[in-house]
């Protein structure tokens, strides 16, 4: 890597759209399904041309940024990534890598590399050959190939397996080889589609840490697809949360956690899931209060400023509070205990408050005695952790 050849690997997606055309005969079936009242998990828009898997996708990725696409199954994450890779035709919009429009450029000329969920290693080639394959096709000199492969193998700690065939490796080792194959190409953009979802939980945690380390060693732009929010939160500089082909929110892990743009993001990010209440937002000049079940608290200054900036008025809202942000108190919202789950350092109380199921996390050291089924507890929350969503649009009123 000579310095002058090191260019800025920015990626811009401008109003990207993907329509999968109907296979003849499928159209009618789908139309019928759309009329059915039952609520489906995936609600992609269906037009005359076909199923719209991704639309209005706008994203500017900075040089060396780590972007994670996350969302429920079928929301269009892979489709987006495959459009960037060039494996899927782009139906509309512009893809710009490093300042050049790439819509119609062949995958090999986009200067990208991709890691697949099922490793996609050539079974009849050794690990070494697998990693060297793309360089060989590019007709790089043998000694350069050898150097690059050995370097990558060193980084990934697979040097001792270089002469083995993929079937003689474990899942984790195979995925390392797949990553190695990608990094020998020294790509401008590294694309990864759920690279860890075939591994067991322990290995997944290890590999996640590996990827963070890897990122520090090979300075490049990453686009990473996952449906696992832990991966998204720990790996991403910024997270793109998608649903039904649309972007829901783009932001740093902290931003999407602290200021979810809508109910979907609020419910998707965070474990256990955020509690929702029917509540009232009350405006008093520059001050905002939320009222729920007889409990009233003032929002913190930052939130008040954001709401005031949008001139939000008093209105009924959906209030969101994360389980870890609720506190058991002597007074406050009253609820009936249904289940108490002992998790070690804390207890997860599943309670019923005004007809809504609510989870309260109580640190074990704060506990006063045991909770039993049917006990009445009271809980409160602070103004900094209350999220206010419009009843009509489900959007966060701060935005």
């Amino acid at each position: 890597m000579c310095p002058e050849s090191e260019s800025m690997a920015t990626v811009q997606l401008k109003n990207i759209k993907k329509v999968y055309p109907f296979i003849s005969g499928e159209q009618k079936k789908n139309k019928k399904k759309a009329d059915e009242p039952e609520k489906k998990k995936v609600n992609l828009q269906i037009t005359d041309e076909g199923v719209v898997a991704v639309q209005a996708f706008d994203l500017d990725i900075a040089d060396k940024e780590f972007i994670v696409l996350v969302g429920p199954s079928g929301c269009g994450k892979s489709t987006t990534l495959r459009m960037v890779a060039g494996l899927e035709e782009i139906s509309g919009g512009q893809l710009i890598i490093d300042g050049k429009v790439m819509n119609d450029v062949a995958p090999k000329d986009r200067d990208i590399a991709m890691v697949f969920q099922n490793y996609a290693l050539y079974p009849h080639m050794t690990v070494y050959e697998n990693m060297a394959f793309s360089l060989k096709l590019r007709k790089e000199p043998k000694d350069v190939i050898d150097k690059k492969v050995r370097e990558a193998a060193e980084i990934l700690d697979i040097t001792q397996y270089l002469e083995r065939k993929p079937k003689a490796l474990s899942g984790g080792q195979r995925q390392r080889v797949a990553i190695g194959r990608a990094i020998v190409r020294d790509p401008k953009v590294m694309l990864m589609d759920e690279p860890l979802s075939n591994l067991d939980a322990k290995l997944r945690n290890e590999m996640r840490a590996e990827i963070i380390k890897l990122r520090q060693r090979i300075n490049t732009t990453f686009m990473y697809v996952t449906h696992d929010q832990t991966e998204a939160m720990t790996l991403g500089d910024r997270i793109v949360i998608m649903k039904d082909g649309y972007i829901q929110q783009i932001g740093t892990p902290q931003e999407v956690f602290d200021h979810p743009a809508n109910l979907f993001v609020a419910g998707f990010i965070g474990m256990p899931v955020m509690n929702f209440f029917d509540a009232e937002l009350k405006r008093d000049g520059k001050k905002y209060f939320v009222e729920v079940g007889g409990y009233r608290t003032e929002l913190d200054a930052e939130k008040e400023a954001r709401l005031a900036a949008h001139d939000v008025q008093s209105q009924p809202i959906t209030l969101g509070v994360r389980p870890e942000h609720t506190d058991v108190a002597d007074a406050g919202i009253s609820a009936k205990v249904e289940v108490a789950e002992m998790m070690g350092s804390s207890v997860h109380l599943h309670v019923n408050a005004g007809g809504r199921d609510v989870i309260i996390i109580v640190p074990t050291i704060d506990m006063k005695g045991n909770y039993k089924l049917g006990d009445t507890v009271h809980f409160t929350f602070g103004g900094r952790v209350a999220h206010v969503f419009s009843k009509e649009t489900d959007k966060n009123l701060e935005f």
Partner: protein
Amino acid sequence: MKKVPEPAAAGGGSSKMHNTLVYIRQHWQLYVLFMLPAFLLTIIFRYIPMGGIAIAFTEYNPIRGIFGSEWVGFEHFQRFLSSPDFMRYLMNTLKLSVFGLLWGFPAPILLAFLLNRIMSAKTKQKIQLVLYMPNFISVIVLCGIVRILLSPTGLVNSLLGTSTNFMTMPSAFRTIYIASGIWQGAGWASIIYTAALSNASKELKEAAVIDGANIIQQIKAVEWPAIKDTVLIQFIMSVGNIMSVGFEKAYALQTDLNLNASEIISTYVYKKGLLDGDYGFSTAVGLFNTVINVILLISMNALVKKMNEGKGI
């Protein structure tokens, strides 16, 4: 082979084999029950008729039976091998089958590669249907079609603006025979390869695309490894049939004028045995054919084994 090794004789290396044998011994009644019908059928219909090859060593007379006929030893073989036509028949047979294998064997594989690249499943199905159809035409009807197409007033001549009688040209016989065979059989034969190709992972192909492989390199890196074993098995089986060129088709495409290329061992056997009634001689020629076949099969399997890291049939 009745050699069942004693438990003590089975060493560590073949302990799996040993376990299997112990298991079979425990349940031997079951195995006998299952194998008996197949065993009997094979004996009755495959081995007993083999006694018929004794005919090859007699001056066979159907009325006096095999053992009533005069025993002549290898006389028929001598007669056939020393006849001036022997070399011609043998070469005709070998050329027809070897060239048939050379051209006919890769055709369905190439076809499968092409079919595999058709994106739309619907179009693929339609094309496959069209390609399969000739397989269901009987050989005799096919030869009729070929004769009509190639006749001096047929479609081919009217397209070329000539009036060549292809059926009378010895030099055209093999081309006609092999090309029509490919037309009839390649579509059907490609099924097994298409099936094997569907095992080639889509992800792997995409990885190859991203690695920068062109179509030929993709086939080499992804698709060929997926069907290699199937191809080898098919190849060994085809080689096994190399000398058993179907008699009907050669006979149906024969004319008096192209005999020079079209007379092969099996048509000769038919003519000698059934038309001339020279049973002993024709059986001897047929037996000769089979023996060559077996030799070819065994040596080809050995060769393939060597090429393919010990994997043959």
